[in-house]
Structure formats: structure tokens, C-alpha cells
């Protein structure tokens, strides 16, 4: 089981690296979208400081979401997915491997880019570390929930935008607790409980999402 699982993650990473800039694009979206807000809202530092945690989290969420549709799409289109399904790995683990690869190629870069943007948006120093920690715990949840949405829409024309519609409502709790942690830290209210809930969400998503995604993939392969 471990061999095929790692082979799948390894292949996805290799494809992402070969994709060149193409695979960095979700980070770039994150940066550009976050940078649009000072342009849209105006440059007042206090205002920016106030909305920074929310804007950063929303943009990270949108960036993670935008790259979801490629999670299964290519593999479905060119028939790799059915070959993988005929392999030794149960579809549940296939979905999990895909979600992990997605997180490694999009979620992790987002976490790494966040500090720079936090400076850009004048996030107060109290929130800095917590922002990164909350992204680190929250973004894998986004990839996992996203894997369900991606699997549900994989064979569809116009899947990409439909995917947003399916996944965004499910992302709301992650957003609320993620932002909540940062704001709590800024106001000195103690971010621990928010982060613990996020952690619980991560465990729940790790356990449940692969099953839902596998059920959806099974349908897509019929």
C-alpha cells in the first residue's frame, strides 16, 4: 500500500515541478489578489491593519480553491485515473494522496508566501505567527474538503466554477476559525481554542473526506 501511495504523490509533485511557473500560479494568485485590496480599499494603514487577517485568509482560501479543479481533471481526461483505479491502491487512499499532493503544491507555498503579504497589509506583529500557524493547520482542510468537490465535478463541463459553488460554503467554518485565531491573538484573547478547533477539523476532514471523494470518483469512473 505504501509503495503505490508514495508513487502517486511523487508523480504529482514531479509533474508540478515540471509544470514550471504553471504550478506556482496559485501563490501568484494569492499575492495578486491580496495586493488588489489595498488598491480597492484605499491605502489607510489603520484600515488595512484592521481587515488584514480577513483579507489574507479569504485570498488564501480563494487561491486554494482555484487550483482544485486540476486535482483530478487531467488524470480523468487522459485516462490515468482509470488506470490508477485499476491499481492496487483503494480509491480512498488515492483521494488522500491526491489531497496531500495538492496541499504540498499549493497550500504549503501559500503558507510560505503569507508573511510577505502580511507585511504588505500591515498586519500587526501579534498576529504574525498565529496567521502562519492557522494557515498551516487550516490549508490542509481546504485541500481535503476540496478533494471532495473536485471529485464530484471531475467529469463535468464547466466543472471549475461549479466547484467554487460547492466548496465555498463548506470552507466557511475554516475561514471563521482561521481569522478568529489571528484576531484573538491580535487582541490578546488567546488563540489556542481556535487553533484546537481547527486541528479537530483537520482530523475530521482527514478521516471523512477521502471516503466521500472516493465515492464520487467511483461515480466519475462509471
Amino acid at each position, binding site marked *: 500500500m505504501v509503495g503505490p501511495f508514495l*508513487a502517486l504523490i511523487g508523480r504529482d509533485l514531479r509533474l508540478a515541478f515540471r509544470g514550471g511557473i504553471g504550478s506556482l500560479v496559485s501563490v501568484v494568485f494569492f499575492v495578486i489578489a491580496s495586493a488588489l485590496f489595498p488598491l480597492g480599499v484605499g491605502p489607510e494603514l489603520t484600515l488595512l491593519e484592521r481587515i488584514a487577517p480577513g483579507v489574507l485568509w479569504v485570498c488564501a482560501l480563494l487561491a486554494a480553491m482555484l487550483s482544485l479543479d486540476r486535482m483530478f481533471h487531467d488524470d480523468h481526461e*487522459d485516462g490515468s485515473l482509470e488506470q490508477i483505479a*485499476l491499481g492496487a491502491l483503494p480509491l480512498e487512499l488515492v483521494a488522500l494522496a491526491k489531497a496531500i499532493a495538492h496541499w504540498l503544491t499549493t497550500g504549503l507555498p501559500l503558507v510560505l508566501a503569507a508573511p510577505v503579504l502580511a507585511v504588505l497589509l500591515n498586519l500587526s506583529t501579534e498576529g504574525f505567527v498565529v496567521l502562519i500557524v492557522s494557515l498551516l493547520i487550516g490549508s490542509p482542510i481546504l485541500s481535503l474538503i476540496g478533494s471532495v468537490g473536485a471529485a464530484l465535478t471531475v467529469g463535468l463541463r464547466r466543472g471549475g466554477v461549479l466547484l467554487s459553488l460547492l466548496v465555498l460554503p463548506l470552507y466557511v467554518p475554516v475561514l471563521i476559525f482561521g481569522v478568529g485565531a489571528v484576531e484573538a491573538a491580535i487582541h490578546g484573547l488567546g488563540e489556542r481554542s481556535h487553533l484546537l478547533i481547527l486541528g479537530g477539523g483537520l482530523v475530521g476532514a482527514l478521516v471523512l473526506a477521502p471516503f466521500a471523494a472516493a465515492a464520487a470518483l467511483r461515480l466519475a469512473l462509471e
Partner: protein
Amino acid sequence: MNHESLARFEAEDLTCVRGGRRVFTGLSLSLGSGGALLLHGPNGTGKSSLLRILAGLLRPAGGRLLWNGTAVRDDPESHRARLHYVGHLDSLKPLMTPAETLTFFAATRAKPANAAAALAAFDLADLADLPGRYLSAGQKRRTALSRLIASPAPLWLLDEPTVTLDVESTAQLERLMAAHRAEGGMVIVATHTGIALEGAERLDLRAFQVGRRATPDSPGQVAATPDFEDETW
């Protein structure tokens, strides 16, 4: 012989429903080691659907598959491990080379790959390290077919394998199928154009159709068309 010499693969009374419509029903087949079966019939009669059912990708609406008498449904993992399915899609990434592709798919089957030999069998040795995007339609097809050789499995399910193949590659595929059968393997092929498969049984999917359309000169068939009345949801 490489493969189980006494293996027998059977399908009993299969019914296929796609998009809410019964495509075929009451289809049974049986194949022993070294056997071959040619599926034919006009467009839309369910050749591809049958192959997907036999591969376990599509769940039949009725009937079951047996391998040596035990139901495949009870142990789908082993069934997957003993078959190769080559459908219409070539499973080749534009950014991956044929050699990498074969190695990867063998790894997903938890088997060692014999990529070099497999590519050589389809005369692809020189293209082994070329990214997939540089390959022509027929070269991609040959890469897909070389999976058959890269990690051996007794049952081959091939859906129109010769499409876009040139004459020499078609002949090579025919030789490889013969060799596979000589080793005790089984081959099931769907094709419109015909392919040399000595001693193969032929299965015409028309025989199992449900809703055949009434043609002006056979109005009697009209009655056969809508069997929806009491069963379509």
C-alpha cells in the same frame, strides 16, 4: 506457462444500464486460459460498456463475474491485479516520458516494471525518454499498449486497440496477443475493423439489445421499444 493454466473467466447474465437506459441484458460469456473473444456490433451496442464492466470499472445492473468459479465482487482487488484494460484514452501525460509512465503505472499496481522491454516490444525504444507531448497519435497509442507487457497480467481487455496504429504496429500487437494466449493468457477485444485472433470466439452485441428501434419494415419491433412503462424512474 506464465499464467494460471486452469483459469476460467465467466460472466453470467449481465445487464448494463447507462444513463437510465438498458444497453444490453442477459449477456453471458466464458473464457478459459488461452482463449480469445472478439466483441463486435454497430456503434452504441455496448462494447465499451461491456469491457468496463469486465474490468470492474462499471457496476453491472444485474448479473455477476466469476473467476475460477468465485465471484469477482467478493474480491475486487485480486481481480484488478489480474487484468489489463486499455481503453480509448492513452493515459500519457504531456510532461512525462513513456518510460516514466510505464514505471509509474507498474508502481500503482505494486509490481516491478519491465519498461525497457515493453517499449521495445512496440518499437518505442528510441522514444522512451521523450516527453509525451512530442508523440503522435499512434505513438501514444503504442505507449498505452506497452503497459500490457510492462507488468504481466493474465486477462487483457482491449477497446479498439488498433485505432491510429500503423500496419506494422497492428501486426506486432497481433503477434503479442498470440504469444500471450500461448502462455495461457486471455484476450477480449472490441473492434470495428477486425483483427487477427486465431480461433477467437465472436460475440455480436446486437443479440443482447433491449430497446431496438422499430424500423419501417419491421413494425412488429415497436412493441419491444418501450419497456419503460413499469420500470423507468
